C-alpha cells in the first residue's frame, strides 16, 4: 500500500502554483493537508504524475474578520478554524461544524480549503458552504474569480474548479442577529462521515421565522439545500409540528440519495428528514435564546 511514483513541486506563490497547474494539466494534483489525497495515493486510487504541494503557501493560512463575513484562507487547518477565538466569537456554527470532521489528528492537518475542494458529499464543510452561500475564491491563469457555493459543487468529488485553478480563500457570511443555528448528523461512529446530516439556520423576527436555511449532506452527489422545507417554515410561527413537517418536506424533496453499506437510499432519505427536524428544533431554541 505505497503510492506510485510522481514528480513533486512545492511552489512558494499562488502564481507559481497556477503556472505549474497550467504546465501539467490533468496530470497534476494539488496537495494541501493530504488527509483525503494521501490515503488515495497510498491505495493507488489516485495516480497523479505530478504533486503540487501548496503547503508552503503560508500566506493562505489566515482567518480574517471582514465585517459581515469571515474570510478563511484555503490552507488554514480545520483545527485552526475550530480553535480560533475569532471564529468562536463571530461564527460558532463554523466552529461546531469543523468539530464534526473526523478527529483532532486529522483536523490538525486537513485544511478548510481542501475539504471544500475535495467536495465529498458526506463532508460537513461543503454543506456549510451551501447553507451559508459562501463565496469561494479561486485563482487561475486569468486571475481570480469568485464562485458561489451553489455553483461550486458539481457532483461526487467534482467541483467547478478548472484544472489550472487553485482555491485560495472562502468567504463565510456571518449569521444575522436573531439567527439560531444547528448542525446535526448521524454517523455509524463518532467522527465518521455522516450517513446523513443537516445544517440549519433560523432567523426569528417578532416570533415568526423570517429566514431559514437548510442544507443536507450525505444524501446525494453534492450537498444540497432543501428549498421547499425552507419555504414551509418561513413566515410561520415555529413549533414542533412545523419542524416535523419541514423534515418530511426535506426528506421528500431530495433526489435519490446514494446508497452504500451503511445506509440504503430510503434510510438516508428518512434520516435527512429526522436531522432536519432536529436541527430546526435546536436552531429555534438558539434563536430564542439570543
Amino acid at each position: 500500500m505505497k503510492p506510485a511514483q510522481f514528480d513533486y513541486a512545492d511552489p512558494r506563490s499562488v502564481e507559481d502554483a497556477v503556472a505549474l497547474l497550467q504546465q501539467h494539466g490533468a496530470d497534476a494534483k494539488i496537495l494541501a493537508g493530504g488527509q483525503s489525497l494521501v490515503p488515495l495515493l497510498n491505495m493507488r486510487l489516485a495516480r497523479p504524475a505530478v504533486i503540487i504541494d501548496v503547503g508552503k503557501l503560508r500566506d493562505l493560512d489566515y482567518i480574517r474578520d471582514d465585517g459581515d463575513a469571515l474570510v478563511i484562507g484555503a490552507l488554514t487547518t480545520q483545527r485552526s478554524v475550530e480553535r480560533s477565538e475569532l471564529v468562536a466569537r463571530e461564527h460558532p456554527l463554523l466552529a461546531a461544524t469543523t468539530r464534526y470532521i473526523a478527529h483532532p489528528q486529522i483536523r490538525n492537518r486537513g485544511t478548510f480549503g481542501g475539504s471544500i475542494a475535495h467536495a465529498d458529499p458526506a463532508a460537513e464543510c461543503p454543506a456549510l458552504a451551501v447553507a451559508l452561500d459562501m463565496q469561494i475564491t479561486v485563482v487561475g491563469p486569468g486571475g481570480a474569480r469568485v464562485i458561489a457555493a451553489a455553483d461550486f459543487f458539481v457532483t461526487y468529488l467534482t467541483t467547478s474548479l478548472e484544472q489550472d485553478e487553485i482555491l485560495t480563500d472562502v468567504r463565510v457570511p456571518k449569521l444575522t442577529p436573531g439567527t439560531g443555528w444547528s448542525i446535526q448528523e448521524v454517523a455509524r461512529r463518532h467522527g465518521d462521515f455522516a450517513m446523513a446530516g443537516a445544517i440549519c439556520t433560523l432567523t426569528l423576527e417578532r416570533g415568526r421565522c423570517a429566514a431559514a436555511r437548510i442544507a443536507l449532506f450525505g444524501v446525494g452527489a453534492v450537498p444540497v439545500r432543501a428549498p421547499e422545507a425552507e419555504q414551509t417554515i418561513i413566515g410561520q410561527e415555529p413549533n414542533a409540528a412545523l419542524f416535523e413537517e419541514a423534515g418530511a418536506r426535506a426528506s421528500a424533496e431530495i433526489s435519490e440519495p446514494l446508497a452504500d453499506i451503511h445506509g440504503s437510499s430510503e434510510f438516508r432519505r428518512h434520516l435527512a428528514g429526522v436531522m432536519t427536524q432536529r436541527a430546526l428544533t435546536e436552531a429555534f431554541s438558539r434563536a430564542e435564546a439570543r
Partner: protein
Amino acid sequence: MTAKRDVSLTVNGVAYSASVEPRMTLVDLLRGELGLTGTHVGCEHGVCGACTILLNGQAVRSCIMLAVQADGAELMTVEGLSEDGQLHPIQQAFVGQRGLQCGFCTPGFLMSVYELLQHNPAPGDDEIKEALGGELCRCTGYQSILRSVRDAAARLRGEVPAAATEGEA
C-alpha cells in the same frame, strides 16, 4: 525514476537530513530510513492512529503525510518521551493503569495524550474521548486508557505521589 528530494527535519531534538523519493510517506522515513521504529503502522489510510506523532507540537498521522511535507518541521515520536531511562509521567500512568495490552497502538495514544495534556491539564472524560476518538485499540476496550489519561494528567499536575500504583515503573 523521479528525482529524489532532500528533507531536513528535527526528530526528538536531533536534526536529520535524508534524500527521499517524493512518494515516501513520513512514517516510512521515520521507521525505515531513520530507524525510529517506535512509531507503528496499522492501516496506512489514516484511521487507526498507530502512526500518530507530533508535528510542530500537534498530533498528526505520519502515514498520510509525505516525508517531503515534513521538510523543516520539528517532530516528536514515542522515543522522545522518556529521558535517561526514566519513563515520562504519561508512560508511567499507562503502565500503572494498564493502558495497554499488546502495546502496538500505544505510541500513537501516548502522542495524542501528550498533545491533549499540553493544552488541557485537567481534561474531563468527554475531552479525553474527543482527543482519542481517532486512536484505535483492539485490546484494551479503552477503559484502562481513560484511567491512564486521568492518572497521567494528575501526575503532570503533580498530584500523584510517585509510588501510588503498584510496581511503580
